[in-house]
């Protein structure tokens, strides 16, 4: 590096890494598929029901609003969202995208 001078040992390792062939890095094996299998909250620790490492929700692997559908669509267990199979089939019909439209979710008075 010309403009950043590596001073300590770790910096020299970063520099070495930067010098490595970028193409070689790109050729590395992709991560194995299927790391997150949506099988319901009792089988996997669903990403989203948590905060990220900074204590916020910005860095989660899926938007936090997506959580709504974890209980609503693919879960048979009575949860804190209306059940769409029998009683409230239209609960989310105005909400095309949870990220932007969550305010349009219907109010429900059981």
């Amino acid at each position, binding site marked *: 590096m010309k403009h950043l001078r590596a001073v300590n040992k770790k910096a020299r*390792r970063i520099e070495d890494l*930067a010098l490595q062939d970028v193409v070689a890095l790109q050729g590395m094996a992709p991560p194995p598929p299927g790391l997150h299998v949506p099988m319901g909250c009792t089988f996997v620790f669903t990403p989203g029901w948590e905060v990220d490492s900074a204590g916020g929700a910005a860095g989660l692997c899926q938007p936090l609003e997506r959580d709504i559908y974890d209980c609503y669509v693919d879960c048979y267990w009575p949860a804190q969202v209306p059940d769409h199979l029998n009683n409230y089939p239209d609960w989310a019909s105005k909400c095309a995208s949870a990220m932007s439209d969550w305010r349009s979710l219907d109010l429900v008075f059981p």
Partner: protein
Amino acid sequence: MTGTYRTGEFHAFTGAGRRFLYLVPSGGIFELDEAAGAVIDKVTHGEHSGGELVAHLVARGIGAEDAADVIEEMVQSRALVSGAPVLGVTHDPPADFPLQTLVLNLTNQCNLSCEYCYEFGEDKVATPEGKPKFMDFETAKTSVEFLLDKSRGRRSVHITFFGGETLMNFPLLKQVVGYGNEQAKAQSRTIDFSLTTNATLLTPAIIEFLSANRIGVTVSMDGPKDMHDKLRVFSNGKGSYDIIEPKVRALIQSHRTRPITARVTLTSGGTDVVRIFRHLKHDLGFHEVGFAPVTTSPDRLYAINDRGMDGVLEQFHALAAEYLEYALRGEMHGFSNVSDTLAELHQGISKSHPCGAGLGLVGVGPSGDIAPCHRFVDSDRHAMGHVSSGIDRGKQTDFLRRGNIDTKYDCHTCWARPVCAGGCHHEAFVRYGDTGHPNLHYCDWIRDWTDTCLGIYGAIAAERPEFLEYFAERKAA
């Protein structure tokens, strides 16, 4: 170059008038040239596209190609970042992490009654009732074998003798040194020994033994007589200074094979750091003097309050400035707190855990019980196995998971976390009742101190880089 760039995570500092970045969490230290500095200044005030940054540099008289190089280097080192935040992946340390250091508590008995003692004082975690007071040779032998067995792959390992007062069981210390050397030699390996003592029981014969066997010595001592005698007292309340002063002088004069270190506990009654340092380093002749504030709950009389701690830091700064003068002349100053931090900064370590406790280092009590470190020895709550049966992996994993920086959310926005990692497990337990709790009461001081040492590091790197060779080898527990 597409998208916009913002500053990565780093702490910017200057040393000898030059600009540096301490990158977080990698721990890399880079010096900036003028162009890189200009980019940092620009991006600090808001995100910019690559094109804007290049234009900014070109307007300052830098060639377009060169300007693009600047941006690329800064992206490679993560001084500049773009896109969504990248989260690091958490890893547990390998379960078979080889041991490096065993702290052997030869006895839990002590002939002093220092008020602030973490082993006997008001905040103690030890539960020694019904346990042996002195380690026997069988347990010590098993401990040595345990260390050699669990440190495979390491040519040299370390045993630190500890107490109680270590020298109250000197006969065993002698036996362990003999046995340890013999066992290590049979495996073409070496064991390096050291001990911590209050110096009250040193005799010429003991000093000769320590010197002949190259055993490193740390003396717990709190300064000149008036300060030392405040809390480092015998059970009748009488200070120990007059007893140890001639012994310490004899030790420093006769023990020439290893540096002799003083370890000072700072309390509310003794925060005159410069005076303590002058006395221990210049009057008594210790090679190195290290300071640590007493570990205590905040309401103890001897606890240092925030104001007192600010005073301590002020004096740390004075000594640190002196350290830099020495270093630039190529001389060792002897203020351990700077040397220790410089050593970590030079390696660029980025810690998953604040120290090696429970990982490369464990403590062993007189009974043979294993503890994460000497400060937890004899505590039922913290025991993790026995030297005869090995480390209890479940308890070890629990301890290490708690202490991992990944679980300390408070630390995730702090730039000093690569060196601090939340701080001492034992202090966290005393303060917050959980070894995995970040030590939030000293965050500001840690950042202040790390910044001071970075400044010194930068100045040395700029003006006398060969001095940093002292820190070339990594000391790790």
